[in-house]
């Protein structure tokens, strides 16, 4: 599928990072809870799903169905995982941001 570039939106970036943080436990509700906890935001399940789909289409994460449990009435979870390109894009973002922040005068970073 052709994509209009592979740059990330702000919310997408947060979701991507959260997927990375949660490691093997990254599925819909866990991501939602974690995001809320860390950023104070309350993403709707729809917004979250749409961000995840986009990230997946851009090739930064992959997903797999696993682990049916009782409280999900037998439905499996879709677990997300960073891909190599997802990891490298996180690094890239980090480097880029750091470089740029460094260039701002009057901000001292140890």
């Amino acid at each position: 599928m052709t994509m209009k570039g592979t740059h990330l939106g702000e919310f997408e970036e947060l979701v991507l990072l959260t997927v990375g943080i949660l490691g093997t436990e990254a599925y819909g509700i866990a991501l939602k809870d974690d995001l809320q906890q860390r950023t104070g935001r309350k993403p709707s399940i729809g917004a979250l799903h749409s961000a995840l789909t986009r990230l997946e289409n851009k090739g930064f994460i992959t997903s797999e169905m696993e682990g049916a449990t009782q409280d999900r009435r037998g439905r499996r979870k879709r677990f997300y995982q960073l891909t190599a390109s997802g990891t490298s894009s996180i690094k890239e973002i980090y480097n880029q941001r750091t470089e740029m922040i460094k260039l701002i005068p009057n901000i001292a970073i140890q």
Partner: protein
Amino acid sequence: MKQPSPPSFAERFFTSFCHARHLEGLEGDLYELFERRVQNKGVWRAKFFYLLDMTTLMRSSVAKPIKRNRMTNNLGMFKNYFKTTLRMGWKRKGFSFINLFGLTIGLTSVLFITLFVQDELSFDNHVTDAKQKFRIYNMVEGDDREVQYLPIVPPTFSPSLRDDFPQVSKSGRLFFDYGGTVFNVGEQVFSEKNGVYAEPDALDILDIEVVEGSFSEDTEPKSVLLSRSLFRKFFEDAPYAEQTVKLTRSTLKVVGVFEDIPVQSHLNLEYILPFQWAVQSTPPERMQSWVWQQFYTYVELRPEVDQQDFLAQFRTYVKDKSEAQIKPYGFWYTPYLQPIKDIHLHSSNFQWDIAKTGSFQSILFLFIAAGIILLIACLNFINLSTAQAMKRAKEVSVRKFIGANRGQLLIQYGFESTIYTFVAGIVSMILFILLLTPFNNFTGKVFTLNELLSVSNILLFFGSLLFLGVLSGWYPAIVLTRFNPLDALRGGKGTKMVPTRNLSLDPRQLMVAAQYILSISLISISLIMQNQYSFLRTTDMGFNKENLIWLPLTTALENDLNTTRESFMGHSQVQDVSFCYGVPGGIVAGDGVFLPQKQENEFSANMFMVDYDYLKTMKIDLVAGRGFSNEFATDPTSAFVINETAVANFGFASPEEALGETVHWATWANTDSLKKGKIIGVVNDFNFKSLHNQVSSVVLHMGESYFQNMIIRLGKEDPLATLEFLEDQYRKYEPTRPFEPQFVDSMFAEFYASENKLSKLFTLFTILAILTATIGLFGLVSYSIVSRAKEISIRKVLGAGTKKLIRLLVMRYIWLVLVCIAIAFPASYWLANMWLDNFAYRIDVGPEIFVPVAFAMILLTLLTVGFQAVKGSMANPAERLRSE
């Protein structure tokens, strides 16, 4: 306790909405959240939030695609069908050509016929409230006369309807201006024929719109209304103003102009005279008559009136009023209502009608003929497609193996035949446009493309194409898809459509038979029609209508008849000149005479007022007695000549017995005075009307004051020079009036003009039908012989001679033709007889028609099949057999 669960409708909706890929994970997430909220916030809020969460998921990334996958698949298949059709069509050029040719001819014919029929059916559509408007006609019966239908009724009908029937809102009479009127406008002279004396109400009913001036009951009698185009013809581009025009004896005031009457109207009127004028020149008691039938009468009923009730009432009323008056005449009538829109197509059996009449029957005939061509073309398609089924068996099998189901294959072949019909449809549209002008010339109608290109017509056309495609595609499709793919690929049994040797009920043979039966019937019927028309043209009319011309008499001409005769006789090629009232082929007066010795009743008879030379000029033969002669001084005042039919109708045993009998005739100038005389001669029956009608009683007598016509018998040589001479003579009397001689034989030809056209069209369609059927047969036979190539070769190798092989191949088709002939002949005999019954004088249908048709059909089959058979059986068997 029952576990709380999210709203079930929402669950169901989400299942139907969500893409299968996301469904399980999202459902799980939603449930998980729901369970957690039930714990924390309670069931109701959990349900609420469940719905809220779900709505946030209403996005395109989650939703199922809208049937996208299935659509693309089907389009792809149709593309493939299209490609296959083109390839197959290209590969089998002969087959495609035959199909397209037949379909194109069929469709083009149908297009033209539809156009013609639509036009015929749209007559008088411009009349408003047509459902309430009627013309009254009478069925006239009598003791010893055949039933007649007359659209002219007594003068008393209309006033009675208006005054005594509350159901009638309007009623009006028309009186035809027999013979036309000659208008003098300034220096110019115009002879016009299409005029009536009319009551204003009649114009209202007919929606004839007076656009300038006015026309009412009070309009003075000596006036005239002109149609817009006639006004323009008379006064060029002058704006409307009250003008005068001169007639021979009087001056008329032009009191108005009416809008030209549409072409598709049953009446063609150019000028309208006030009805009062006709009334003034008629004896008052005649206008009160219940016997004298002369007036076209139109009524408009009020809405909601029950026609049957009204008609029943009116019949009783008429019976009461007319019975006493009509009794002595020995006939009676029953009035009928004819809806105004029916006049054009349903008046063909009326006498004395001035309406433009078409024949419903003819239209039906044409429609059937065109339908037959189309049917034959479809049968060609079906036949050839099924014959070639074997060639496509492999294609079908491969499609089946790949996974096509029967329905898809049916669609494919239906689609294929629809493509053929559409291609044929487009070609026939082009042909139609190219041929429109010749068609207009032939039918005398004016069709333009604009009026044809209505949305409904176009939709109808494409709809019919689709229908035709499906119709001719379904049977081949069924045959093609019936194969067992395994057998077909192995080339096994059940796939080879080898024709059976005997006549069995193979559907394809049935179809060929159907084509044959239809074609043979068409040929026979069109031949019978042509024979009938040539019979009408050549039959003995009882007088000689060749080289006979007719001129209306004018005041100047009738001033001194003897001098006029002398001047016209001064040419070697002018044989006889006669003055008269009543010319065969023209309008003839109907009247009655009394025979005091016979009975008190009046006998109805057609009146001819003639001079001494009439019988000689017309070449009418005497059967008994003598003709009028100037040797008898009493002939002008007291001599009558009757025809043979009159002898019988008046009750004489023989012509001789009638001689010397007394005849009384109420003169037209004054009905009280009787012309009394004796029968001096009997002439043979001569036809003065179309041969649709039997000859009726005729009485001839001398009456100079009634003369209106001049008839001239010409010699056979150089008619142009003779006509020039006549014109010169005419100019001496009438320097400005148009010289308009009419040939009596062409006047008779006009009686059959429309039927002649019909028979020509019919012949054309017959030829097209036979052509289509023949090339279809040609295609079928050529295919069947190719598919029997091996069999033929083996027979040949085993010693069969060429002759024997040809006979083998040809015989079954000859048998087929014979069977078809046996079916088609009785059918067409029956149909043709039904048609011939329209004519009082008709041919008998016998073997002289059917034998040549039979031979022609057999010959045609021999040629078609024989050519292929010879080709097939002459081929070198070694080459054929080597091929595999």
